[in-house]
């Protein structure tokens, strides 16, 4: 069954159309990455899937339920968002930050239950954040901080996690670690991941499927290997791209004309 379904989704701000007529169905337990040049509409599409932007036309459904018909709390139990530039509130502990993910479950007027606290503890454990639990969030390094933001999304216990450029600003090792972690959640936990990534090599290696956006329109939708080798990809970026096979993995490199 398709977990995330976009039907004819158009997102616009005033008269400006950011995403137009995108129709996509993403299967449960798979990873779909949205690629495309800057200004292609990736973030707008991701925000529509996370329910933060209401499409001006078309519908987004998750688990067969239309997002626009849900309130914030119901939606937050179905889809979690890892934003591109998360706000890190100084003075809050890592534990309290991750526990924000449980608010949609226990509500704003009730305290966290024993179960909520157990889930936060297990997330901290899973993301190796246990030793930081009482630290102020602003004292974490970039990699630790990004893991913590991911932890908040995990704590929401949703079927779908949407990530907007989750590895920006991380060094190579932390990039790989974060993506491997997500990959194992997809493989073992049945999680559905929708992400945007600028790095085409990593996009190709980690996603089951790539969606190529350009100027708000869906250009190509297919298996990761096919999309990175397509002429359309090079055309959208307006440059010469070469795909090299390194030990069975596709490495996408730009070549000067």
């Amino acid at each position, binding site marked *: 069954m398709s977990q995330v379904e976009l039907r004819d989704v158009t997102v616009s701000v005033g008269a400006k159309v950011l995403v137009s007529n995108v129709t996509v169905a993403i299967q449960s337990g798979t990873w779909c990455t949205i690629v495309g040049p800057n200004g292609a509409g990736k973030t707008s599409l991701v925000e529509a899937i*996370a*329910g*933060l932007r209401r499409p001006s036309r078309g519908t987004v459904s998750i688990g067969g339920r239309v997002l626009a018909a849900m*309130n*914030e*709390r119901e*939606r*937050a*139990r179905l889809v*979690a*968002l890892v*934003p591109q530039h*998360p*706000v890190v*509130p*100084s*003075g*809050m502990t890592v534990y*309290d930050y991750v526990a*924000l*993910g449980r*608010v*949609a479950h226990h509500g*704003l*007027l009730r305290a966290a239950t024993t179960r909520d606290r157990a889930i936060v503890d297990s997330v901290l454990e899973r993301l190796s954040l246990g030793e930081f639990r009482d630290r102020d969030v602003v004292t974490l390094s970039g990699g630790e901080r990004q893991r913590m933001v991911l932890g*908040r999304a995990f704590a*929401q216990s949703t079927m779908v996690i949407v990530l907007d450029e989750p590895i920006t600003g991380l060094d190579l090792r932390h990039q790989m670690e974060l993506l491997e972690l997500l990959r194992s959640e997809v493989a073992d936990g049945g999680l559905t991941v929708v992400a945007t990534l600028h790095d085409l090599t990593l996009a190709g290696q980690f996603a089951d499927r790539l969606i190529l956006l350009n100027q708000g329109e869906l250009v190509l939708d297919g298996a990761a290997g096919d999309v990175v080798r397509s002429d359309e990809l090079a055309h959208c970026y307006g440059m010469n791209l070469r795909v090299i096979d390194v030990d069975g993995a596709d490495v996408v490199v730009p070549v000067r004309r």
Partner: protein
Amino acid sequence: MVALSLTGLVIAAIGGLVIGPTSIGIGPVVGNVLSHLGVGHNTLSTLQSTVLWQLRAPRMVLGLLAGAMLAVAGGTYQGVFRNPLADPYLLGVAAGAGLGATIAIVDVGSGLVTPAWTPLLAFVGAMGAVIVTWLIGGRNSRSSGATLILAGVAVASLLTSAQTFLQQQSSGSIARVYIWLLGSLASASWHSVWIVVPYVAVCSMVCVAAGRALDVMSVGEDESRSLGVRVGRVRLVVIAASSLGTAAVVSAVGLIGFVGIIVPHVVRLLVGTSYRRILPISVVVGAAFLVLADTIARTVMAPSELPLGVVTALVGAPVFVLILSLRRPVAV
């Protein structure tokens, strides 16, 4: 910290009852209270008893209510707007109340007395100002808190200039308008206490209950929505409660400054950044602080009184600077 602030509250309250030009000891006050309950015996003279129950007690209770409400409203605004400079007067409450009171005072012509309907007009002015601000900047749930703050600035400037104009037109009443604007508990009575109590009780409880929502909203509007918070609705409820409580208090005691901005910051420096702790403790500390300030205001230059707003700043600012320099920088 909770125990400490409660102890401070009790000391401030007792101080508010026993300190003053007519000296009344703690023992006789306790004896008098007990005698009302049917135990022990009263040693106070009729004069002392009247001073205690008709002057100091209502004044002390009104001070507690006003301090608690202004402090919790300020803390709530700082949270909902994620702005350390927010105070309860941010959305035009003070300017609206000021205009309402000025209309009432100037209207009498001679300006020799502050008429009885001054609080009512002040209340109407305060709520009117907030409602106009909300209609301009907050109706659309997609608009950000910044739009609302700017709308508040515009409304406040407009009303303040109208108030100044009225005041200048009627030079005879300038002194009374000015005294009202600076805030005072001098006209406190049980009547004013009973009018203010329900507003402060309900509104401060709503603000305190919003602590968890404000903690979530510290990650910003979009992220709070993705975490399941109806940002627009929380903002409406919290602003309505803070404004209503503040308007009720301001209409009874005038524009007491400084409490709403400084108390929550002091509390934040002492207990950390979670609004679940800041707001309830601000209720207690705000109440204690205002009664303490009022006790100073009515005793240091007795029989004349210092304006309460002057004392809150005079006492509060050095305390705040001291704590600020001892602790880490302000984080909201």
